[in-house]
């Protein structure tokens, strides 16, 4: 147990100070729900009454700063930058690096009602027949994000000067260090090397993890894109490739884009909103990100075996490697 005050009081006091409220100003903060959307973060649903911004919000807490991909300040900044350029992102109303308030850095953003859990989300999409609309909204959101001048991004976000080469090197290093040779991975890596595109003519801010599971949808369509901790400056085609990866379809394999709709719908919307689509580069990134996930699963199996993270779930990842190798080779086959 810690002697930390309960989150309601701690947040109320923090907000009072942040909003510079006087002693007579009423403010009440209640934690009305919790969710652990990601392994790293804790999300507290808040009901704020009084003060300048009453309403429902979410406090996203990063328990320990040392495992942050992006600091909460940088993630909040990138979220607001994207939002200011027309990408649907919940508004951030406050950021704290003071870990004493909630046990970790946090930001507070508006609560957006809707569905995030993939299978339920896909059911909602089918019921309302809004898959094509959501894919169109995703295409437009990507175009809005990719047109932002990357010089506006926080300096701390990853910005490899050669994103194609960096991604290829990372996959290549894992394949060199597999527990046993995996010829299907070697085949895909060879293909990636032989078909390696030039570095992107323009490096842009990419989210790098937009997928079914990181979006909020309601019966009207796409409401928000979440989880910006992986944002970086890179090749825009990486974003468009990742959302097409098979695991994000949750069995709805006839709809390439997240089980929601087709690549044609995504491309049309992206181009209509001003994005520059490069089919060859898109295809290369699809194989690359598929391989990257496959090598990640191989890495989880290794972490189980060498004791870094012993768990039946991590062990089981080894039996999933064939899925990603198969996806990569069928993509190459269709190329």
């Amino acid at each position, binding site marked *: 147990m810690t002697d930390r005050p309960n989150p309601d009081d701690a947040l109320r006091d923090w907000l009072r100070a942040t909003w510079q409220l006087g002693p007579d100003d009423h403010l009440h903060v209640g934690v009305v729900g919790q969710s652990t959307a990601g392994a790293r973060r804790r999300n507290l649903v808040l009901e704020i009454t009084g003060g300048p911004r009453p309403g429902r919000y979410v406090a996203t807490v990063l328990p320990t700063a040392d495992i942050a991909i992006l600091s909460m300040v940088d993630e909040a900044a990138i979220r607001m930058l994207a939002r200011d350029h027309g990408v649907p992102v919940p508004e951030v109303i406050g950021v704290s690096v003071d870990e004493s308030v909630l046990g970790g850095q946090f930001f507070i953003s508006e609560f957006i009602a809707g569905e995030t859990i993939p299978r339920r989300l896909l059911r909602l999409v089918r019921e309302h027949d809004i898959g094509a609309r959501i894919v169109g909204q995703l295409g437009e959101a990507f175009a809005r994000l990719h047109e932002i001048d990357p010089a506006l991004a926080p300096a701390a976000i990853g910005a490899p000067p050669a994103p194609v080469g960096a991604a290829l090197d990372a996959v290549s290093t894992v394949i060199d260090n597999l527990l046993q040779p995996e010829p299907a991975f070697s085949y895909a*890596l060879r293909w990636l090397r032989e078909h390696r595109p030039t570095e992107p003519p323009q490096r842009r801010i990419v989210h790098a993890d937009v997928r079914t599971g990181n979006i909020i949808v309601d019966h009207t369509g796409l409401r928000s894109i979440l989880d910006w901790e992986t944002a970086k400056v890179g090749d825009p085609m990486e974003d468009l490739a990742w959302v097409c990866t098979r695991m994000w379809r949750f069995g709805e*394999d006839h709809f390439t884009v997240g089980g929601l709709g087709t690549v044609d719908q995504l491309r049309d919307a992206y181009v209509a909103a001003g994005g520059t689509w490069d089919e060859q580069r898109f295809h290369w990134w699809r194989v690359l990100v598929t391989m990257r996930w496959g090598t990640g699963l191989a890495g989880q199996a290794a972490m189980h075996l060498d004791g870094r993270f012993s768990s*039946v779930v991590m062990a089981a990842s080894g039996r999933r490697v064939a899925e990603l190798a198969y996806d990569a080779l069928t993509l190459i*086959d269709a190329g």
Partner: protein
Amino acid sequence: MQYRPDAAELLDAVASLLEDDVIAAVPAHLQHQVRVAANLCRILEREATVGPANDAAERGRLADVLGADDDRDLVSLRADLAEMLADPAPIDPALDRSIRDALLATLRADLAIAKPGYGATTGAP
């Protein structure tokens, strides 16, 4: 040779116990792990049944594309193929095609064990 039940039959028994009784009896935070464990038993049950024939077929395919002797073992054939693919030296397009076909056939067989149905459709658009 062991008496019955054989490996597949025992794994079926363990999987049924996990699926039918244990998942409901453990605290919520363990249910996902138990579900994964039950699925692993199902995978191993299929592996015990068709794994040896799959390995023999893969060995045959690899010996074929590599032009290797019939007595070579699967592990060394896989290592040879991986090494050949890692070498930037050009590979004849016809051979490249047969290597890819051989690898896809093996992956479909692996998936029939690890994730039935997955190899029947493709990840392509």
